[in-house]
């Protein structure tokens, strides 16, 4: 089994996930970690696939779906990098009136304390006159949650946004 990272982009419409995954299934691929979501008017897929034949046959299997749904597809062979062991221990939520520099400001402060972003989702919403930006970051803070609070809470004033820092504790019951 070899691994590849498959990226798919297309104008959003019903049936994209079904067409892509059906094609992968017929090409004997299996799907690992995946992120599939609508961004703007586009639907995006990024996923790790295991394939048993060659990448050419994966592309060939995807071809009818690509043509029918007008998709853009990219396949990167990847070596099987060991899955990182750090689980997210901190969630940072940010929202406020949208303006340039929010993400750069917040993630810059996080990078300075060695915070590893594992997952970042954001959304621009609100009306054209009052645009709103919402972002949720999950990641691993090597020095604990207090270091994150100290790093990002000053941005409330500097950036004029609401910033929340919450622990992520996985409790096994």
């Amino acid at each position, binding site marked *: 089994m070899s691994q590849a990272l498959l990226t798919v982009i297309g104008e959003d419409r019903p049936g994209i996930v079904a067409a892509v995954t059906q094609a992968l299934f017929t090409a004997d691929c299996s799907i690992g970690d995946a992120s599939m979501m609508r961004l703007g008017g586009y639907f995006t897929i990024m996923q790790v696939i295991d394939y048993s034949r060659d990448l050419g046959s994966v592309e060939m299997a995807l071809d009818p779906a690509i043509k029918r749904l007008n998709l853009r597809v990219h396949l990167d062979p990847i070596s099987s990098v060991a899955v990182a062991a750090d689980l997210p221990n901190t969630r940072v*939520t940010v*929202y406020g009136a949208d303006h340039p520099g929010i993400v750069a400001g917040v993630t810059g402060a996080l990078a300075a304390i060695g915070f590893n972003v594992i997952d970042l989702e954001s959304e621009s919403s609100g009306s054209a006159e009052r645009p709103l930006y*919402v972002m*949720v970051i999950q990641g691993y803070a090597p020095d604990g949650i207090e270091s994150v609070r100290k790093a990002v809470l000053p941005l409330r004033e500097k950036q004029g946004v609401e910033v929340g820092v919450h622990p*992520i*504790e*996985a*409790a*096994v*019951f």
Partner: protein
Amino acid sequence: MTVLSILTYPDARLQRKAEAVQVFDDELLKFVGDLTETMYAGPGGVGIAAPQVDRHQRIVIVDVRPKLGDDCHGLMVLINPELMAWEGMAVGREGCMSVPDFTGNVIRAERIRVQAQDVSGRERSFECEGFEARAVQHEMDHLDGFLFLDRLVSRKTDLFRRKNYQKS
């Protein structure tokens, strides 16, 4: 006392609805002892429900002292438990002895009141909050054949849920 073996997903027995306990005898007392021992031996060690060891009766044990110290009820044996009241909502990441190696976000009530019988059949009532309330709700779900997997919410949902909750 004996450490019992834990059913793990996918095992259809975890989805069975458990029956009420009718007889409070020495056999029940012994089983509750074994179940408690099994809980303490587990990876989380703070809660267990009888269906997890293939006994389909409404028995839950929670003891969150390993996590909270003495700031909780200590060992709670909840037989035929009923949720009488709840308030607040919170997102928390849960794992389960019956679902190895996976954790996910679940919304639970923040404060609950539970009515249950103890091991000799006496009626008891507990008010729990936070982590302890989460543990009780997680274990009570097992009695109705639910796993936390049935209650997963997406990460994006978290923020919006929290905002709604603060406004109300």
